[in-house]
């Protein structure tokens, strides 16, 4: 048997080791080796599930979407071209699935950038105390999903601007403007909370 054939056989049938990289696991999945999905799931499911929970605010829905995400990854492993990391690719699939669900649940567009008015009054200058965690957490839940996705991927999952753009399938400029709009909206929401109290 030639070396290439042996390599192909290993990819298709062998049990992947814990040292296998994400890219090697995807290669094996592309050859139909379902064993490669388990280590990939073990590495990334928690992060993807957290991301989905934040976008949908519903753990049961997030669980279904998590399953859909990994099933989609299994079926489309052959289309992975390595332009981004596997983790970013998985976030992209998860975001896509969440987008479908959000559109189905409420027919407003997921990308709500257009709804934001042009820069008007300055962002309220809030004191440090205003950024208390519980209050910010409550305000985050009120952000449009497109803006929240940028903040979650950037700060919770530590993705670079280019990686966020890849995961959300939009230009880098859109990611930057969504971040800017999210900051304005958060500051406004916190100022409103102050006014209510």
């Amino acid at each position, binding site marked *: *048997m030639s070396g290439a*054939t042996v390599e*192909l*056989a290993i990819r*298709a*049938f062998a049990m992947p080791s814990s040292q296998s990289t994400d890219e090697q696991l995807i290669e094996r999945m*592309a*050859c*139909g*080796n*379902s*064993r490669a*999905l*388990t280590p990939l*799931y*073990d590495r990334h*499911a*928690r992060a993807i*599930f*957290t991301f989905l*929970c*934040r976008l949908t605010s519903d*753990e049961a829905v*997030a*669980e279904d979407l*998590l*399953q859909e995400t*990994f*099933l989609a990854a*299994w079926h489309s492993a*052959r289309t992975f071209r390595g332009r981004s990391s596997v983790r970013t690719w998985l976030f992209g699939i998860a975001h896509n699935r969440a987008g479908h669900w959000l559109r189905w649940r409420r027919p407003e567009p997921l990308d709500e950038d257009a709804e934001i008015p042009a820069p008007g009054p300055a962002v309220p*200058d*809030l004191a*440090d105390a205003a*950024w208390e*965690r519980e209050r*910010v*957490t409550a305000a*985050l839940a009120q952000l449009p999903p497109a803006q929240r996705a940028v*903040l*979650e991927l*950037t*700060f*919770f999952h*530590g*993705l*670079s*601007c280019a*990686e966020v753009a890849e995961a959300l399938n939009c230009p880098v400029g859109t990611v*930057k403007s969504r*971040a*800017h709009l999210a*900051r304005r909206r*958060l*500051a406004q929401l916190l100022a409103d909370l102050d006014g209510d109290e």
Partner: protein
Amino acid sequence: MDEHEKWRELLPWYANRTLDERTQTALEAHLRDCPACRQELITWQHISTAVRAQPAPALPRNARHRLAALVRPQPWNDPRLIPLLLRSQLPVIRGEIWPASTLVLALGTFVACAARSAEALPFVLMAPLVTAVGVAFLYGPAVDPALEIELATPVSPRLILLVRLALVFGFDLALGLAGSLALALLRPDVSLWPLVTAWLAPMTFLSALSLLLSVASADSGLGALVSLMLWVVQSMGRISGPNSLPWRIPDLTAAAARPWLWALALVMGALALWIGGRTERWIGRPA
């Protein structure tokens, strides 16, 4: 876009430390001279802290098993794997099948050529029998003594059975075509296509019957024995004439029987593959 705006947009990724070193150094230089950006950076750091401080939900316990139940190995996804699968099953198939099939069909060709019998009858009768006996030995404890290990591999038992069937049936089909071609060349009264159609339908039918019996009983001997007996009786009827036996035997090599033979072969073959893909019955039984 002015210089200040350009740096301001990058503040979230300065806060999460994912900027490349050069951009980070340049942004730090801008921050030293720009109180507005310094203030905004503090805001981003607050947002970052708040986002990271959110509790991460626990992963549902059964999610992994639910996913595993939905995912089936698909090694046939990659067409390059088909030759590999065929090659992997060659050593498992009984080695006697290849020389025995070659010898019997060569003998059939020789006798049909030498005896000058009508319709090359010896060849037409031998091709189905030799294939059916070979197919009977594709399945069972004698072929798969380590079935437990096989079931743990990502290739389904159904696919393995199909690959073995393709090997043995394909080999006999090639021999049958070669023998028919030789007869058509050596005997002016024999035409190639009518000869091929005379043995192909009975060969497919008898092989499907033999495989189904082997798989259903998990006993290769039963499949071989029943197909052998059926074909011996059929051959006696054809050679000695329809009135030589106490009961009437339908002529399975006749053109009128072919649609029925193909239909039955299809049903029995599908049934055999279905049973073969789900059975684990002979685990623990001695080979």
